[in-house]
């Protein structure tokens, strides 16, 4: 019993570590446009910023995107989904695991599941 408990404890530490890493990744790369709280109001979004970055806290918009959509727009940038080129491509910057982690961070902001 104690062993099972220890196992769960160890596993929860691991998932916590991954979650906090993904938050660090989000804050470093994405918050400059999407905002620390995911509401699309990062410091780059000045009056002449042509297209508003996606507000990740809007459940109805985010629910329309599948996890695969989110992955491909992170990797290949806005044009991958016929969106603005102001959304940069990150395929040469982030690892596949980091992108998976970011999808989870975004799902945390919208508190929603994606379209299948």
């Amino acid at each position, binding site marked *: 019993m104690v062993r099972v408990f220890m196992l769960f404890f160890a596993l929860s530490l691991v998932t916590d570590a991954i979650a906090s890493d993904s938050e660090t990744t989000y*804050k*470093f790369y994405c918050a400059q446009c999407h905002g620390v709280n995911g509401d699309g109001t990062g*410091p*780059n979004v000045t009056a002449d910023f042509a297209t508003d970055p996606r507000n990740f806290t809007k459940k109805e918009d985010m629910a329309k995107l599948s996890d695969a959509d989110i992955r491909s727009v992170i990797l290949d940038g806005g044009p991958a989904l016929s969106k603005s080129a102001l959304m940069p491509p990150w395929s040469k910057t982030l690892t596949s695991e980091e992108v998976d982690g970011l999808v989870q961070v975004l799902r945390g902001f919208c508190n929603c599941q994606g379209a299948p």
Partner: protein
Amino acid sequence: MRYWQVGLSLAMALWCTSALPDVASGKAAFEGQGCTGCHYTEGPAREKTIEDQLAKAGPELWYAGSKFNRPWLEAWLTDPKPIRLLKYNSLDEKNAGGHPTLVGADATAVTDFLMSLTTDAVTAGVIKPKSHPKGKLIFKKKMPCSGCHQYEDRKKVSGGLSGPSLVGAGARLNPDWIYAYLSNPTVFKPVRMMPVFAGLMSPKDMEFVSAYVASFKGE
């Protein structure tokens, strides 16, 4: 040997030494003025994680001699105006300025020292500054550069704030460094908020956009 010959050769020797870059005393001044507290000057790049980058109090200077144009550097050290619009490593505080200032001989000597810090990761003579329509199209439309960098087009300054301002980048940056920074970024900054574009843009497009950035005039 005649006296005048001795005199002349002595004068020439003096003239030569005074014109020589004063790297050693520049290094001493750099250390003495506390610059090492915020800048490291020995490569290669040390940052491995986001935490490493966020722990830095100022940008690395180990390739300063390949990055900056000398006249800009010497002038900036005596009158340092903000380059980044936000405080270093911050997303919510403005850059309030107040960078340490150097005067007179110290500024020249520290410039000599910083200009001696070069890297062979930069190939000379590749990029000629040019406000090419192709470079402009990449910068403003095809790629997200303007989302993070201020720049000036037809006397109007616009663009994002998270990257260093590129207004006047032509006076500040060595055009060949810009190209090297785009095509081989991890040598200079293994961890940075700017995406890696190497492999996503053709080498030709990188040349165009580098030439365009290098053509940005000052205010």
